[in-house]
C-alpha cells in the first residue's frame, strides 16, 4: 500500500473530490486533496505526489497558471480535469506541460486509463523503454522496426516517426503541433491536413480495420493517442 503512487486531487467541488477519491482508492492509489491553487502548491511541496489531477476552474487562480508552478517544484505528471470543452484551453494546458486531460462528465474507467498512462509515461521518461506494443503491433523504437502479427510492416520514414512519437507516450494524447514539429522538423508550420493524410496512410498499414481505428485514435481538435498499449 505504502508503495503505491500518491495522487493529488485539485478541485474546489467537494463532490468531485469525493468521487475521484473513491475511484482512485479503488484502483489502490494513495490520494491527497486540495481545494485551491495555493493549497495545491503546498501539497505538491509536502506530499510529493506522482500525479496531479487538476481542475482548471479554481476559485483563487486559473488552473493554467498553476501548471508551470507545479512543474517547477515537482516532477509530478499533471492530468487536467475540466468542465470546459474549449479545445484551445486543453491545447494550452498540454503546451504548458500537462500530460493529458479528461473532460467532465468523465467515464471513471477512462479516467483511470489516463492516470495509468500518465504515470507510465513518467516511468518511461525515467528509465526509457525501447519496445512498445499496441494491440497486435510491436514497435521497436531503437531498431526502427514495426511488426504486426509477426509480420514486418513497411512504413515510410515519416510514418515511422509519427508512430514512434505516439509510442513514446503510450495511451497519452500527443498534440498536432507536437507531431508536426517532430515529423517535419523546422518546417512544422504545416497544416493539420498533412498530418491527417499521413495518419490515414499509417492506419491503412497498422490498423486491423482502418475504417474503425482502434490503435491510433483521434482527439477532437487536439491530437492523436495510441491505445491498447503495454510496456
Amino acid at each position: 500500500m505504502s508503495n503505491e503512487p500518491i495522487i493529488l486531487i485539485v478541485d474546489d467541488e467537494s463532490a468531485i473530490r469525493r468521487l475521484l477519491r473513491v475511484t482512485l482508492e479503488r484502483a489502490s492509489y494513495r490520494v491527497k486533496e486540495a481545494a485551491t491553487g495555493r493549497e495545491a502548491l503546498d501539497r505538491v511541496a509536502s506530499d510529493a505526489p506522482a500525479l496531479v489531477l487538476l481542475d482548471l476552474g479554481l476559485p483563487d487562480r486559473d488552473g493554467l497558471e498553476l501548471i508551470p508552478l507545479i512543474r517547477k517544484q515537482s516532477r509530478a505528471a499533471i492530468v487536467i480535469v475540466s468542465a470546459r470543452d474549449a479545445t484551445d484551453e486543453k491545447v494550452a494546458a498540454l503546451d504548458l506541460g500537462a500530460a493529458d486531460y479528461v473532460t467532465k462528465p468523465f467515464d471513471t474507467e477512462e479516467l483511470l486509463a489516463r492516470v495509468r498512462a500518465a504515470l507510465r509515461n513518467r516511468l518511461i521518461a525515467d528509465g526509457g523503454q525501447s519496445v512498445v506494443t499496441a494491440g497486435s503491433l510491436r514497435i521497436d523504437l531503437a531498431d526502427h522496426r514495426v511488426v504486426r502479427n509477426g509480420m514486418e510492416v513497411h512504413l515510410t520514414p515519416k510514418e515511422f516517426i509519427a508512430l514512434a512519437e505516439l509510442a513514446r507516450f503510450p495511451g497519452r494524447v500527443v498534440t498536432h503541433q507536437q507531431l508536426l514539429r517532430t515529423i517535419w522538423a523546422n518546417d512544422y508550420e504545416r497544416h493539420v491536413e498533412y498530418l491527417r493524410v499521413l495518419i490515414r496512410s499509417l492506419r491503412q498499414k497498422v490498423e486491423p480495420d482502418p475504417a474503425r481505428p482502434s490503435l491510433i485514435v483521434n482527439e477532437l481538435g487536439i491530437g492523436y493517442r495510441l491505445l491498447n498499449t503495454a510496456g
Partner: protein
Amino acid sequence: MTAGNTDRPDPDALLRIAAREGRGRLKVFLGAAPGVGKTFEMLSEGAARRRNGADVVIGVVETHGRIETEALTRGYEVVPRTEIEWHGRSLPEMDLDAILARRPGLVLVDELAHSNAPGSRHPKRYQDVEELIVAGIDVYSTINIQHLESLNDVVASFTRVRVRETVPDRVLEAAEIEIVDIPPDELIERLKDGKVYIPDEASRALGHFFSKSNLSALRELALRRAAQAVDAQMLDYVRSHALAGTWAGSERVVVAVSEQPGVETLVRTAKRIADALHAPWTGVHIETPRSRSFGEAEQLRLAATLNLVTQLGGMVATMPATSVVEGLKHYAADARATQLVVGKSARSRWFEFRHGSVVDQLIRETPGLAVHVLPLERYAAPPRRWRGTVDRRDLGRTYSAIGLMIAAVTALGTELFHILALANVALLYLLPVMVAATRFGLWPGVVAGLASSAAYNFFFLPPVYSFTVSNPENLVTLLVLLGVGVVTSSLASRAKVQADLAGSSARQNAAIAGFARLLTAATNVDELAQAICAELTRLFDVRSVLLLPSPSGPVLAAANPPEDRLATIELAAAQWSLDKGLPAGRGSDTLTASDWLFHPLTSAGRRLAVIGIARDDGTGPVRSDQLPLLMSLVDQGVLVLERLQLESEMRELSQLKDRDRLRAALLSSVSHDLRTPLTSILGGLAEMRREAPSALLDGVETEARRLQRFVANLLDMARVEAGALTLHVEATDLTDAIASAVHDTRQSLEGHDLRLDVAPDLPMVRVDPQLFHHCLLNLLDNAGRYGDAGTPITVAARRTPDRLTLSILDEGGGIAVGREQEIFETFRRIEGSDRAKAGTGLGLAIVKGFAEAMGLTVDAANRSDRPGARFNIHFPERLLVRDIGEGSM
C-alpha cells in the same frame, strides 16, 4: 477655398502610412505638466522592450537626481553625450552621430522640446529625433503638453508661463502617443514632497503654474490631444482600408468653372476623367474682379454649374485672384492637381492678340500639369457695368466731389499763378486725379484726369479761356497730365480691387475657420447638429435645420430657431435629398415649391445627414455667390460628422464585443455549474453499479445520461440562437469524426449493430471538428432512439460530382410524411411516431444550426429500401480537401 483641405479624405492618408514603412517609429510619452512621471514611464517601457529582446539604448535621459528614475536607468546601455564648445563653455548634448553609428533598435530620447546648444547639427532636439526615425531607428521620447506649438498660446493664456521651446504639431501627428497621467492633487502632493524638478525659468511662476485649476486644464488639453491623435490615425486607417479603391491614386482632377454657358460639358468631362483615374476632383471658380459685375443670369448659371459639380460627386472651391490664370495656377498647386480641365471659347484673333490666350499661358506656367482643353461656344461677355466699386447712388456724389476738387485746385492755381511757373500749376492738377483714382477707382480717375487737363487748358494755357493750345510744349504738359491720370487711376484701382478681394476671401476663410473650430469642439452628433445650425443661421441669416436619416425617414436633430419644425412636404423634400444625395427644394432642380433648400451631407456614398435652410421672407435661401461658402461649410460638417459617427460605431462595436464576451462567460459558467453535479452523479452511479449491480441503478444511470445530453443540447442551442458560434475550421477525416462520435454515443447505441460504409479514400472535409462532432452525436443518438431495438444503424458516405453526402440510416417508424423539414425546428417532435420515446426535440435543431454555421446542409427522408429514416449531411465541393502534396509523406 482651400481651408480644411488638410483634413479632407485624401491619398495622403495612404502616403503617410506608406511613408512609415522602413522608417523608425516614434512613440511620445505626453504629460500635462512636469513631474507626472513621463521619463519614468518611458524607462519602464524601454526596459520591457529590452526584456523582450529589443536592442534598446539611452540617447539622453534627464533623471534630475530622482532616485527611482535613476534606478530604472541601470542596466541600460547609455550612448555618451558629446560636448559642444560654446563661448568657452562646454555644453553636453545628445550624440546624434554616435547613436546613428550604434544603430540600436530603439533609442530613448528624453525631452523632445529641448533646444540644442548653438553649434549642434540641428537647433532642436526633435529634428535630431526626425533624423533617427528616417534612419530606421525607433525612438521613445517625452514632452509636456505646453510645448506643443499649437497649444503654446492657449497654455500661456491661463498659466502665464510661456515656454520658448516648442515642437511642431506634425511631429506628434506622426507619432504614437501614450499619455502619462496622474490626478492634479497627486501631482501637487509630489511637488510638495520635492519630487518634481522645476526648470529655472518656471520657478518664478511656480505657485501659479501648479494650481489645481491649471493642472486640470493642462490635463484636459493633454488627454484631448491624445484622443485627437488616435482619431486621426483611425481615420487614416479607415480611409486607407475602406476606401482604398477611391483614394488609391495620387491623381487629382481640377476643372475650371466659369459663368459661361456650356461649362457643364467641362464638368462632365472632368468627372469622366476623374472616374477613369479613380481620383477625387474639384470644380474651382476663380473669382476675378470681373466676377463682381456678373448679372443675375450669369450668377445663376455659375451657381447651377457649381451645383452640378456637387451632384456629380465633385468638390467645389472658389479662389479669389486677379486673373483666371493666376487663380488656376495657384489653386492647382495648392490642391496638388495633376489634371486640369479648362474651356477655350472661340474668340477673335484680335481678342487673343490683346489679352493673350488663357490656355497658352496656363500651359506655359503650369509645367507638370496635364491640361485638357475643350472648346466652348462663342460667348460674348455682356458689357461691363462699372458699378463695381462705386454704387450707382454714390455716382453723383463721386463726380461732384471730383468737380469740387478741380474747382478748388483751379482757384488755388489762380491765386498762386502769380508766384508759380505755369508747369507747377499743372502739378497741382495731379492732386484731384490721384485722389479720385485711389478713392473712387479707375473710371472716376480717368474722368478726373480729363477734367483736370481740360480745366488747366481752359484756365491757364494761353490762349486763356479757350480749349485751344498755342504752344506745343504746353501740349506735352497736357498729355502728361492726362497720362498720369490714367496710369495712376489704373494702378490705384487695381490695388483697391485686390484689397477688396483679399478682404472678402479673408472674411470667408475666417468664417470657415471659425466654423471648423466650433464643429471640432462638438463631442457628439447632437452638439454638432446644433453647432452647424447655429453657424448657418449666423453666417447666412437664415432659418436652419439638420436632419439625420432613420428607418422611418429623416429625423430632426437640431433647428435654429430651436422651435422650428418641418411640414410634411418639407420632410418629403428632405427625404428625397437624403435618398438621392442631391439638393432639393427652393433654389434646386427638384421640389422647388418647398420654402426650404435641403442639402445632403454625404461621404464616400454614405448619406450622413441633410441640412435645410430657409429665409423668413420666403425668398431664395442662399444667394448664388454664397453657394461656394455654403458648400465649404457643408464639407466641413461632413468631415466632423463622419468622424463622430465612426467614433460611435467603434464604441458600439466594442460594446457588442463586450456583450459577446459576457454571453460566452455566462455559457461557460452555466456549463460548468451543470456539468459538475452531473459528473459526480454519473461517476457515483458507475461506482455503485460496480459494487452492487441492480436494474434500478441502470435505470437511474440512463436517466442521468439523458439529462446530460439534454444539458449539453440546451447549451449548444443557446450558442446557436445567440449567434455566438465561433468556427475553428480544420481539415477533418470523416473516419476520425465518426469514430469519436460513435465512442461518445456508445450508451445510446447499445443494442444496435453499427455498420460503416465509408470508403477510406474519401476527401477530407473542412469543418469545425467540435461542432461537427455535436452534429454526429445528435444524429447517432436520434438513430439509436428511434431505430427499433436490435436493428442495425448504418453510416454511409457517398461522393457525387458536386458534393459529398454523409447519411445515417435507421430502421424504425421513420418520419411522418410531409414533416421532413419540420423535424429540424426547435422543440418539434414528430407526432405519433415518437410519443413513447424520450427526447427534447432540440437535438435535430442543433444539427441544423451547427451544420448551417459551417456551410453544410442537412435533410431527412424516409428510406426507400425499408422502413426507417435517413438523415443526410451534404458537404459542398468547396468544403472538400483535395490534392494534398503526398510527395512530402
